[in-house]
């Protein structure tokens, strides 16, 4: 039972996000007489400060976080892997430049650069995805570069080169397929950090804009009414925690299964 819990949460998250437009929810519908009402049998999570159904808004928030996570992780994974792999394979001055650029990005603490970038570009989902991807690619690039450097000396790569394969062919057919495992693990944990980052930026008012719902903006708005209506803070926070926890659990499990090195350590 406990084994399948994270999978269950994540599948639920994805289904809610994908089917959101077809669900009978009304996240913008206002009922003035129900403002701040606590959870009841008719509205499982109660109503917010404008009299909107919290459950409906939570479901809409699931879709914001899901799409942002999907886009940011895919974009930064593809961008980072390509940059890292090609930089290591081609080497020379290009590699030097890439390493310097990565060092510069890594010199910015955590989410700070994303906050600044999103703040300057202005609020909105597209800018949010752009800001988070700009910050996110570095981790994948560094990993892909390190892995490629060690793969470079492998026999099959040398053989491919001896047979006269071009740079593009070697990187795509002989190097990238072997980068899979560590990058998948990194990307899994990446989902968790992007979900938190999206909510964090929306919490600061830099992400999803009203009236659209995000778990982060629900938390921000709800925290003003915390004493009267704690459900406004507890519901979106719980949703965030469950998703992030599930991703982390799954990531740990994946790492144990895919990563030979850590398997040996655990024994």
């Amino acid at each position, binding site marked *: 039972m406990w084994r399948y819990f994270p999978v269950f949460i994540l599948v639920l998250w994805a289904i809610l996000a994908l089917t959101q437009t077809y669900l009978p929810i009304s996240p913008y519908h206002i009922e003035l007489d129900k403002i701040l009402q606590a959870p009841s049998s008719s509205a499982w999570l109660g109503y917010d400060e404008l009299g909107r159904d919290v459950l409906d808004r939570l479901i809409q928030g699931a879709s914001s976080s899901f799409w942002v996570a999907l886009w940011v992780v895919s974009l930064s994974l593809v961008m980072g892997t390509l940059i890292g792999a090609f930089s290591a394979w081609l080497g020379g001055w290009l590699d030097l430049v890439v390493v310097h650029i990565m060092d510069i990005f890594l010199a910015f603490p955590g989410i700070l650069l994303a906050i600044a970038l999103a703040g300057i570009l202005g609020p909105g989902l597209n800018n949010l995805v752009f800001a988070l991807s700009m910050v996110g690619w570095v981790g994948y690039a560094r990993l892909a570069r390190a892995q490629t450097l060690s793969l470079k000396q492998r026999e099959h790569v040398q053989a491919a080169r001896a047979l006269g394969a071009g740079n593009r062919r070697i990187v795509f057919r002989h190097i990238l397929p072997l980068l899979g495992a560590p990058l998948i693990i990194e990307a899994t944990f990446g989902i968790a950090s992007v979900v938190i980052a999206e909510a*964090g930026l929306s919490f600061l008012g830099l992400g999803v804009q009203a009236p659209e719902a995000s778990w982060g903006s629900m938390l921000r708005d709800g*925290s003003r009414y915390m004493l009267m209506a704690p459900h406004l803070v507890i519901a979106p926070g719980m949703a965030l925690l469950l998703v992030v926890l599930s991703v982390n659990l799954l990531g740990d499990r994946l790492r144990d299964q895919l990563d030979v090195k850590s398997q040996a350590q655990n024994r």
Partner: protein
Amino acid sequence: MLGVVTLVFLLIHIVPGDPVEVMLGESAQIADREALRQALGLDQPLFTQWWQYIQNLAQGDLGQSLHSRAEISSIIAERLPATFELALASLLVAVVIALPLGMFAAWKVNTIWDRLSMGFSLLGVSIPNFWLGPLLILFFSLYLGWLPVSGRESFSAIILPALTLGTALAAILARMVRASLLEILNEDYIRTARAKGLSEQVVLWKHAMRNAALPVTTILGLQLGALLGGAVITEIIFSWPGVGYTLVEAIQRRDYPLVQASVLMVSLSYIIINRLTDLVYALIDPRIRLAE
């Protein structure tokens, strides 16, 4: 260092949006705009502006705030100590929680205690600080009334922000302490120490912890970046008057020079802290000597 400065500079200048428009409002005359642009040097080529920026920076001149017209260097000088205070307090919280938790988990490895503390640490990694913060406020400030909701007036005001910011770091550290201790407890010299009849305490503290301190210090240095980034959100939750608070305020007011300076200051602090970590590293490991 120069790269960071340049990226921060480009960040502000490449992005669409005109600071002159923000300062004068949309109804300003074209001539007025041009005059202000010239006064600010915004009509110069990008490279000239960049060179000017570097020169000013080297003299400690961060420019003026567009909003309050105050010298940014004095704003930052006023706010930076608060952020350091918060970061240090969070670091303390993290170490105080993580060391015993990680050591205990490693000592009682594969028991229910190990699982419990690692489960707790997984929870700590997964809980966003902008949820933990409001929850702590709700419980300790509003229900129990023990601690202040926000501000920096009294000593007790720092407890909740430090707890909020320190928890994630504590969770990561605890896992690291456990992992490195486990590895070390399997080493031959630990078996030798035990065989000599030394007590468990001595083995754990004198032989194992000293060596476990190395990887833990590395992680600590790396994670301080995340800590400084997280400080931005924590400062907002608790209205803590630090650089992070200043940054978000400046973003909302489109006060670009102030945004620029805040990001720069936090990043430079991070770089300096990383250098310091290297020094600490040499201090605890006699095998490493930086001079060589």
